[in-house]
């Protein structure tokens, strides 16, 4: 457990360091995620060193959002003033993003021969 935490927090700390050094406008956690993927891929660390903790965290991702969702009550006033455009535009646009991303991906795969016969296999 301690080793697993060391790896995950190590990647996060490296992400923080990269943000601090470069001033790059990306979240440290996203950089840490890519670092962890890279370390696993280049076999610097082994999957079993980190898998248990990672599965635990990933499975409970939704729970970690609860306090942020509770904090929404702080913003009721800002949202209330223009709630119709804010909620309708966000909802409509979110559904559009889902549909467009999915369709373009399926279309591209079909165009490229798709599945196991694609040029990327």
């Amino acid at each position, binding site marked *: 457990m301690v080793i697993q935490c060391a790896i995950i927090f190590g990647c996060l700390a490296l992400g923080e360091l990269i943000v601090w050094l470069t001033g790059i406008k990306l979240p440290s956690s996203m950089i840490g995620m890519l670092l*962890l993927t890279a370390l696993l891929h280049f076999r610097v660390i082994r999957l079993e060193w980190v898998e248990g903790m990672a599965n635990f965290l990933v499975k409970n991702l939704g729970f970690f*959002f*609860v306090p942020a969702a509770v904090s929404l009550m702080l913003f009721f006033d800002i949202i209330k003033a223009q709630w119709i455009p804010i909620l309708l535009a*966000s909802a409509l646009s979110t559904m559009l993003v889902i549909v467009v991303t999915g369709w373009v991906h399926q279309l591209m795969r079909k165009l490229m021969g798709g599945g196991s016969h*694609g040029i990327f296999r």
Partner: protein
Amino acid sequence: MEYLDNMYFLLALTFVVYAASQILQLRTGWTILNPILVSAVVIIAFLKFTGVSIDTYNEGGRLIEFWLKPAVVALGVPLYKELSAIRKQLLPLIASELAGCVVGIISVVLVAQLLGATKDVVLSLAAKSVTTPIAMEVTRAVGGIPSLTAAVVICVGIFGGMTGFRVMKLTRIGSPIAQGLSMGTAAHAMGTSRAMDVSGKYGAFASLGLTINGIFTALLTPTILDLLGVI
């Protein structure tokens, strides 16, 4: 009732309410009973009713929120497991992410303008699909209200998580990769957590979607807003 301010009590309450919400959704199978949404509504009602302040709640809340960053790092594990699948279809991935990013920004801006939102609100909505730190940073850069963006990002995450799979069923988006990708692209880590409920493969592509869309949104939002004449 000073006891209600006790941090451990409020933490326990959060665990219990979330566990109950999960069971409630499992039993009913109703999409609207999203555990994050139900928990937030119950806890907000509790705070309003008892008069416990949000600052007091957040003393414990911070400890839960603390795990958000390590949990995002941990998404590197499912991502690693799907690396070979990702490399085989780099082009479809990039193309669909680009389309999703651009459509997401343009559509939210146009609809909000059409419905009469003021300029600062429109600017705050542009980056609504991506994870909070990126979205707030983009809003700051284009001159919107970052805290409004933070609120909208959470709403989008809840909404995307709730409706995503239903929307994809109606629009015949059936491949696991496209489904996972769409969830992460449209609803960041909250959509990813919903995709992870289905399987690790869905979750891996959702993590990819949230990452690539995060980067595209950070890079493209100012230019798109400029082209739309909003800034």
